[in-house]
């Protein structure tokens, strides 16, 4: 076995928790919820120039059942909020949410009756990205913050 070559006759111990967190943090697959112009920057984030594959997040899953983090990119109307919440509810736990850009975070310039003033009104947002639209580096930063969060929290717990 190759491990024998590296470690000789020694051994090391770890916890299943650390192993799970390591695996989870390095395979954060996004669910693209592109609603407006922020989605263009989100596509650049996944493209070759910014190369989200370095952080294990290049696989955009268009099925909520296969994704870990939802990137809400763009302004969200009251009509759309029901669809977004429905997609969010279909994502399996553990799951995280990124509100990308000023509109998704606070409503932004769409200060009017038809737009939800921030998707945190109906979603548990983990990280807010500022900017209008944010640069792809900001989304990489958000993914790194999500990875930090995954590494900090307890990954395994007994069901009550």
């Amino acid at each position, binding site marked *: 076995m190759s491990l024998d070559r590296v470690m000789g006759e020694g051994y090391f111990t770890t916890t299943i928790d650390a192993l799970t967190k390591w695996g989870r943090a390095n395979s954060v697959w996004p669910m693209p919820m592109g609603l407006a112009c922020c989605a263009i920057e989100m596509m650049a984030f996944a493209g070759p120039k910014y190369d989200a594959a370095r952080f294990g997040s290049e696989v955009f899953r268009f099925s909520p059942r296969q994704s870990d983090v939802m990137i809400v990119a763009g302004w969200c109307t*009251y009509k759309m*909020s*029901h669809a*977004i*919440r*429905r997609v969010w*509810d279909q994502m399996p736990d553990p799951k995280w949410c990124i509100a990308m850009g000023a509109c998704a975070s606070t409503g932004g310039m769409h*200060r*009017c*009756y*038809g737009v*939800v*003033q921030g998707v945190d*009104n*109906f*979603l548990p947002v983990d990280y807010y990205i500022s900017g209008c639209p944010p640069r792809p580096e900001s989304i990489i930063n958000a993914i790194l913050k999500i990875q930090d969060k995954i590494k900090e929290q307890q990954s395994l717990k007994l069901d009550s």
Partner: protein
Amino acid sequence: MNTDTRDSILQDIKEFLGDDLLELNLEQAYPLLRISGSKIYDTCRFLKNTLHFIYLNEIIGTDRFTSEDRFEVIYHLISLRDRQRIFVKVYVDEEDPLLPTVNDIWKSANWHEREVYDMFGIRFEGHPDLRRIFLPEDFKYYPLRKEFPLLGVPGSLEMPNTTPDHD
């Protein structure tokens, strides 16, 4: 723009309308005429059948926020044959905002009139399907009226359920 064609069209309109042509504005790029509300249906039919304005580009509603003749509805018409564009405007009263539909003249008026109804509450008599087009059907307000608050009425639009359903 070919001003000769425009002038002859305007002359025809003047002869057709007579005293019902209340205002004629030629200062803008395209002629804008205001007519009395009772003649809007006949004028639209005349403009389409005689002057060949076969394309209804849009119907615009405006809240002027005045005590009389509060609303105004603007019909934006295009003649593809003569390359002319014209705006026809009518005032609508606040008490009973009602206009005849032009849906049987231009089919495209269907959704435009529904939008004006949705945003301003101006009803179109004879419209085949006068429902709200953007907002929910149980919405009680008309959002583009001036007295409507900028951020809407709290609770008037439904938010998704954020707690899981237990059975």
